[in-house]
């Protein structure tokens, strides 16, 4: 692939890095990344991947932009309130970098459509807002042998890990075998979140995606990165592959995508 002059200028700070170079930039331009959730985490992930020249970015989200999103969802703006998030995002990303093809998917991810939606992508990014979806994303990525870059945020804390259950590395079910029943762990909008936390965790996810595409460095596979914004501490914990994992062990009990997108957000009473 030959770069156009404007591309050489645009990506010059990448191209001069020996770990990227012209070859790496070509890899980025031909990479296909699907982002689940065009919200708090999806925004910084998508914006940095678009800036980096990731050629195809799929965005899946069924919501429309609400004014309460704008405290952290930096891909959207006052002028796109009321518009589907995937279209608002597409507008922002293609304005920033016309090289990028954005595929807006305004739909709910389900156990039924996940395999088909994921099949055209190289890397999957989870920035969803509920446990049901997280298990659907994990299972579909596992069956399709795709790398899954997972991030989650709540209040002042975030978690990042890279899941490759189709290899010797763990999957999401190795880390958390079951979703909490609704009501026991706050998970969503009602619990509140420090806006900038979405940026911290989302950009860490974007870094892992870029490293995966380039094949450089060490990914957060088998490790869980914890960030606490209040104490400003990062910690890494080991995540072993569970030899009895219901999905990715040699004797699985889950053989098709499971998990439910009907998981309801609730805050515990206590």
């Amino acid at each position, binding site marked *: 692939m030959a770069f156009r002059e404007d591309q050489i200028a645009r990506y010059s700070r990448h191209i001069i890095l020996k770990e990227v170079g012209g070859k790496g930039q070509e890899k980025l331009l031909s990479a296909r990344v699907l982002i*689940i*959730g*065009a*919200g*708090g*985490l*999806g925004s910084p992930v998508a914006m940095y991947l678009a800036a980096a020249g990731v050629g195809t970015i799929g965005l899946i*989200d069924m*919501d429309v932009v609400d004014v309460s*999103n704008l405290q952290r969802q930096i891909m959207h703006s006052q002028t796109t309130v009321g518009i589907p998030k995937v279209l608002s995002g597409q507008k922002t990303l293609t304005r920033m970098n016309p090289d990028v093809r954005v595929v807006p998917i305004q739909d709910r991810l389900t156990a039924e459509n996940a395999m088909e939606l994921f099949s055209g992508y190289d890397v999957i990014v*989870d*920035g*969803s*807002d*509920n*446990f049901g*979806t*997280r298990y659907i994303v994990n299972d579909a990525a596992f069956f399709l042998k795709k790398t899954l870059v997972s*991030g*989650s*945020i*709540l*209040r*002042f*804390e*975030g*978690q990042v890990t890279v899941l490759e259950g189709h290899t010797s590395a763990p999957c999401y079910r190795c*880390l*958390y*075998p*079951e*979703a*909490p029943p609704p009501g*026991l*762990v*706050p*998970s*969503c*909008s009602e*619990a509140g*979140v420090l806006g900038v936390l*979405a940026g911290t*965790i989302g950009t860490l996810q974007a870094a892992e995606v870029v490293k995966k595409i380039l094949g450089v460095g060490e990914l957060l596979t088998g490790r*869980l990165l*914890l960030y*606490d914004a*209040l*104490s400003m501490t990062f*910690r*890494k*914990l*080991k*995540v*072993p592959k*569970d030899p009895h994992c219901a999905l990715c062990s040699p004797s699985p009990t889950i053989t098709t995508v499971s998990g439910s997108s009907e998981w309801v957000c609730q805050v515990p009473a*206590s």
Partner: protein
Amino acid sequence: MSVVVRIPTPLRKLTGNQGEVREEGKTVREILNGLESHYPGIRERLTDESGELRRFINIYLNEEDIRFAEGLDTTVKAGDEVSIIPAIAGGSR
């Protein structure tokens, strides 16, 4: 044995907003007993009716998940750090 227990933000309302508390015990189970006696209500957030660790809560002894060691019977020593890590799912909305 006195160890530091790290409390995640969703559980801090039970510990008077403390992110770190000290507890005594020889095993993780004894540490949890100590937690419950000082901060009543915390145990049911961590373990189920049969006393087993809930499947969406991980407890780490230093960097290691106790599920892959001796579970709640994993022994602790002075200076260890016990971290309670719940699954969290926020991101999009």
